[in-house]
């Protein structure tokens, strides 16, 4: 059984075809990278998968369930989580609250209205675990806006991890990071349990080749090719679009 099955997805903005007949499968436990030049449709694809953008054609199956028309918050309950290319956090709330909000996202306690949020000790322990993972436990009481960009980038990822998702979509997790920060992030993604399948988009090919079991190349809304990192590295078509787009 495929964890995610995508069948003939299509999306256009006006006359521009952003996604065109995109089909692929993700198997449980895989680490899959999504690469392609700017404007290839990577972010749109992630938005369609998470329900932030409605596709015009095609279907999406998560764990054999058709989720094509399901609102995004219900997909999260099925085990889907995502991060954003641009930091999308709760800037004026403190770090601990940010993480607690992420943890309770799939719990019914998110509707509790009388007990203080900090009284749910199970979630507090989990928050401590996540914040220690990125070395930010000491800063838990500062507002997220006060953190540095690189630290916010890490928070972006632990928020997505908080619900222990079955499928994690990371939209350019290393965007804007220094080499060292990017390595740290790579280690973090590598250490994510195999219970979680990861699909991530990235421009940093070193990160892609070191992390991914499989690479999909998106080019003008179509899947140009896919294969293991070695296959993609040696594929002349891929070299062409990358050299072409970067010069």
């Amino acid at each position, binding site marked *: 059984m495929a964890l995610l099955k995508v069948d003939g997805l299509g999306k256009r903005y006006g006359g521009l075809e952003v996604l065109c007949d995109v089909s692929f499968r993700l198997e449980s436990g895989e680490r899959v990278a999504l690469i392609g030049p700017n404007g290839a449709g990577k972010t749109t694809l992630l938005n369609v998968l*998470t329900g*932030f953008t409605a596709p015009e054609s095609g279907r999406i199956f998560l764990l054999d369930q058709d989720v094509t028309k399901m*609102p*995004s*918050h219900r997909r*999260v*309950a099925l085990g889907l*989580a*995502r991060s*954003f290319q641009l930091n*999308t*956090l*709760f*800037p*004026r*709330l403190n770090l601990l*609250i940010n993480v*607690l*909000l*992420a943890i*309770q*996202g*799939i719990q019914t*306690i*998110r*509707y*509790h*209205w*009388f*007990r*203080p*949020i900090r009284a*749910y000790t199970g979630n507090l322990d989990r928050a401590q675990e996540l914040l220690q993972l990125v070395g930010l436990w000491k800063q838990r009481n500062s507002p997220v806006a006060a953190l540095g960009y690189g630290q916010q980038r890490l928070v972006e990822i632990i*928020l*997505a991890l*908080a*619900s222990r998702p079955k499928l994690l979509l990371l939209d350019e997790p290393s965007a804007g990071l220094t080499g060292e920060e990017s390595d740290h992030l790579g280690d973090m993604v590598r250490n994510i349990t195999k219970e979680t399948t990861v699909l991530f988009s990235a421009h940093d090919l070193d990160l892609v080749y070191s992390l991914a079991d499989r690479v999909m190349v998106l080019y003008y809304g179509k899947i140009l090719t896919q294969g293991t990192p070695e296959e993609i590295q040696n594929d002349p078509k891929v070299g062409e679009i990358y050299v072409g787009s970067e010069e």
Partner: protein
Amino acid sequence: MRLIPFIVIVLFLLILPSFAGLALVSLATKILIYGLLVMSLDLLVGYTGLWAFGHAAFFGIGAYTTAILMVRFDVTSYWITAPASLLLVLFAASLFGLIALRVSKVYFLLITLAMGQLVYGIARTSLGKLGAITGGSDGIGGVPYPDFGFYFSPNSYYYFTLAVVILCVFVMYRIVHSPLGYSLQGSRESEIRLRALGYNTWLYRYLAFLIAALFAGVAGLLYIYFNGYISPDAIGVEATGFLWLMIIIGGSGTLWGAFIGSTVVLALQYFASTVIPERWPLIFGGCFVIAVIIFREGIFPKLRSFWSKVINYGVVKG
């Protein structure tokens, strides 16, 4: 240490009637009622990030329902009129919320403003049967204190109001620090992120709208018994504008700021209008400008940081 100012204020409020005259006790009652109303609006504006501009309408529906039931239909039992008023407030809010929450930001402001004016318009109609019930622009008066088996005096009604307001503040305080309350703040900070975490953000905003309306309805009930009289002027867009000013002066997203705002504005109005009634708007406008310049985030955040400095100083010294 942090609770000291709070305890001092509550003690002060408890002994106030023993030395203050009727006028001041009545002013204090009004300040408490408006503080509660402003706090309910702050749940939307400051916590949830919903710019509601028709909020006084829910206050009005609460007050008017009780007044109409008591004066026009001779329903004297508090146990019928109060629940009926609050139910009607919730009913109106559940309808208005459905329509207004299809949009956000300034569009939400405009739609809630229109809805507020709709309620104002209905209350102000002086023609036909409706006019006979609402009293039109004259409003409706002659509402006695609630009958709990004993007679209220202005002093005992002040204590009653104080008790209800403290209870409401306690409940509101628990709400904003609960999982639900922080989720509302999350929807203010980033609706997209909250949705990506599995929250039905629409439902949260709707709940906030209903809760805020309910508290506004309670304030409306307290007001009609206190004032005995309600007119369309107390519930229209101008009234909501005043609530916004109180939030801005006191500090949004803080709960206590609501009470500071209502104290400053109503006390200023009271003293200015006893000295030079015709110049009151001028004095008020000037004070508003000064408050915004000096206390940019509102008075409460300034006081809070001042007090934490005092505490820290004490800790360092001690």
